[in-house]
């Protein structure tokens, strides 16, 4: 979610609430005999407000489970989650007196809370530019969960294209006469570009392409990311396929282009996968830590209110 002018009301509301909380906290911290304590009356009020805000922020997950319920628009919930969740942090700090806590429970609570807040802020910041990066750098973006499936299909498509290409090349060789085969042994230069003679090149090219498909294209399409492979690099891929085009009769270029495009799409999907992990990876911290925080926070509240 982009934080834009539509968030103005939430920003102002959060700032006002924070200012009020701070305005009460400063004299409380200065005047109170024991200093700011979570167990004092004011500390409990701050803790209750902070907990309520955290709980409300946590309800976003429940809200997403029942999207059809008429309990406010999803964007409103998201804005509330963002700003009220953020607001809960200073209120909990006011509650704890800006201390991490000496007991294991309170210390873990603060560690989890900091993890939730930091990961949330990190995620919110990423939302501002990473989707644009994905759009720019991954024109062939697809549904993230479909990437593996599509990569499998790309492998099928590549195998089909390569097989057809080999068949065509091998078919030409079989049909060649001895003269053509003799001519194939020669090579020449045309327009500064070296060309192999068609039939002679086909035979050699088919072998080369076969090896290239088995050694590079197939593993690359199977492998996640393709790190270290020639085809993972766009420039090296272009150069490689350009060499193939030199060796290959022009009639077969469309199939070579298909193979190159498939590799290019795979590369983009790998990039999408990597960017998606960055864009959503923080959720692996944010959500589990939030659940653990709510659980331990409830225990903390029950125990602290008693003692």
């Amino acid at each position: 979610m982009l934080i834009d002018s539509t968030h103005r009301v939430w920003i102002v509301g959060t700032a006002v609430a924070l200012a009020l909380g701070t305005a009460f906290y400063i004299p409380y911290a200065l005047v109170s005999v024991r200093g700011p304590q979570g167990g004092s009356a004011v500390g409990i009020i701050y803790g209750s407000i902070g907990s309520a805000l955290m709980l409300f922020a946590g309800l976003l997950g429940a809200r997403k489970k029942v999207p059809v319920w008429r309990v406010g628009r999803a964007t409103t919930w998201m804005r509330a989650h963002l700003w009220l969740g953020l607001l809960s942090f200073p209120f909990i700090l006011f509650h704890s007196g800006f201390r991490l806590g000496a007991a294991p429970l309170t210390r873990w609570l603060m560690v989890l809370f900091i993890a939730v807040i930091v990961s949330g802020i990190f995620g919110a910041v990423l939302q501002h530019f990473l989707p644009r990066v994905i759009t720019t750098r991954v024109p062939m973006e697809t549904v993230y969960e479909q990437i593996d499936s599509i990569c499998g299909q790309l492998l099928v498509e590549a195998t089909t294209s390569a097989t057809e290409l080999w068949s065509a090349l091998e078919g030409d060789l079989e049909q060649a006469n001895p003269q053509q085969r003799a001519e194939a042994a020669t090579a020449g230069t045309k327009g500064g570009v070296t060309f192999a003679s068609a039939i002679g090149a086909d035979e050699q090219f088919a072998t080369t392409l076969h090896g290239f498909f088995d050694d590079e294209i197939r593993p690359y399409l199977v492998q996640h990311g393709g790190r270290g492979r020639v085809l993972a690099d766009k420039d090296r891929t272009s150069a490689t396929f350009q060499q193939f085009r030199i060796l290959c009769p022009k009639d077969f270029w469309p199939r070579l282009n298909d193979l190159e495009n498939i590799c290019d799409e795979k590369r983009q999907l790998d990039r999408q996968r990597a960017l998606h992990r960055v864009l959503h990876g923080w959720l692996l911290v944010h959500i589990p830590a939030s659940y653990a925080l709510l659980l331990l926070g409830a225990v903390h509240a029950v125990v602290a209110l008693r003692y």
Partner: protein
Amino acid sequence: MPRVRTAKTLAKRIDMQYFTRLHGFRRWRLVLSIALPVLAAGWLLAERASGNRVIYSSGPVSSAHAVFGQNCNLCHVRGASYSAAVPDKACLACHNAPVHNAHQAFTPSCGSCHLEHEGKLRMAETANAACTQCHANLYTKEGHPKFDSHVSGFDRKHPEFYPVRHGQFDPGTVNLNHHAHLQPTLRGPNGPVQMRCEDCHRPTGVNEPWPYSVAVVQPASQQPVVVPAAEVQQTKKRYAEIAAGPYMAPIKYVNQCAACHTLQFDPLIPEPAPHGKPEVVHAFIVEKIKQLVKASPELVHKPVTTGYKDQIEATRNYLRPALDYLVLPTVPTTPENWVSQRTEIAERVLWRKDCKVCHSQTTGEADKLPTSVKAFIPARWLADSEFDHQAHSMMTCESCHSGISGSKLTSDVNLPKIETCRRCHKEGGALKGAAEGRCYECHSYHDWRKEQPLKGKFDVNALRAGS
């Protein structure tokens, strides 16, 4: 056929049932979302099973209460409500903490000043706010408070020490000239001396002999008085580490003065008169002179003054005033008359000269003894605060009592001003690179003079239950 990439072909690639299966990322998210809370709950359950309550504690207890272990219920007494906050009666079960002031309008709870669960801090080290919540705007149940009503901290608003405020003077009546006593050519019992502060002023508990005590010149007559620490501790110090010698031992004639200011009243009697009430002194003199004449009856036939002036002069060579008033007696005819005249001379020496060096006294009528004004040397100047000389022993006396070498009058108050203390002591203490400056450093809330003996109620099993 070349590969054709159209919207239709792209759409055909999509697995329409993909959302029914958890993809790796979502699966991890679900697994972690379950695992982490379960891990947290497991941790709580494991700690509960092992009986460890420390995880819920807001912090480690103080060293003094560490013996309770995890027996939380000793302090956290659960009442009728859900709350199990620490009531004052739980503290008073072990601590007989006397009330602060009978006129105080507000009595804070124990826990509001003494912070527990803050680690190995001494709980007596209370925050300034514990004091200033009342003393910043002090009022009492009745009448006006006798203390400054607006004290907000040592650095900020704290009155000057009462004795050194403008117009205050030393109420002591024993004449003392510090300037004279610190001169380099002072005549001591065995020749010139340079006196130092510690010759007369020492913290209690120091067992070294006093250099100018009566023992120096007359070991057998009066034993130096060793002043026990408890005598001068008007308020009970709660800190074992400064129990020895926080205050200066009070000035006693036999300890600090006797070697130079002897009370020898007769050249033939080596024992000096006791330093006491005139009646006691008179009885002592009469008795000693009677013993003298009994031992040497021939003295009755000699002039009382023979050699007397010179001997007394030699004995008390530090006395400058002329001793002309000693020449008066005639030759006595009877032992009683000789004793009477000799006693009169001796007492004239004492009453009119020796005692007057230090004491203001009213001279009695011919047949009456003089009366000395009570010395009234303050044992402690700052009765409502505590000061530990021992803790400041690394410093020279003059660094705080800066005007002492020029003090010539008994009425001079030679206490340092509060600014002297503020040079080292600041609120914030070590955090500000200074000595502690919080209220508790000098003041004690509880009036420990009123502490009552406590009868224990716990046995070891009750104390260590749950540990």
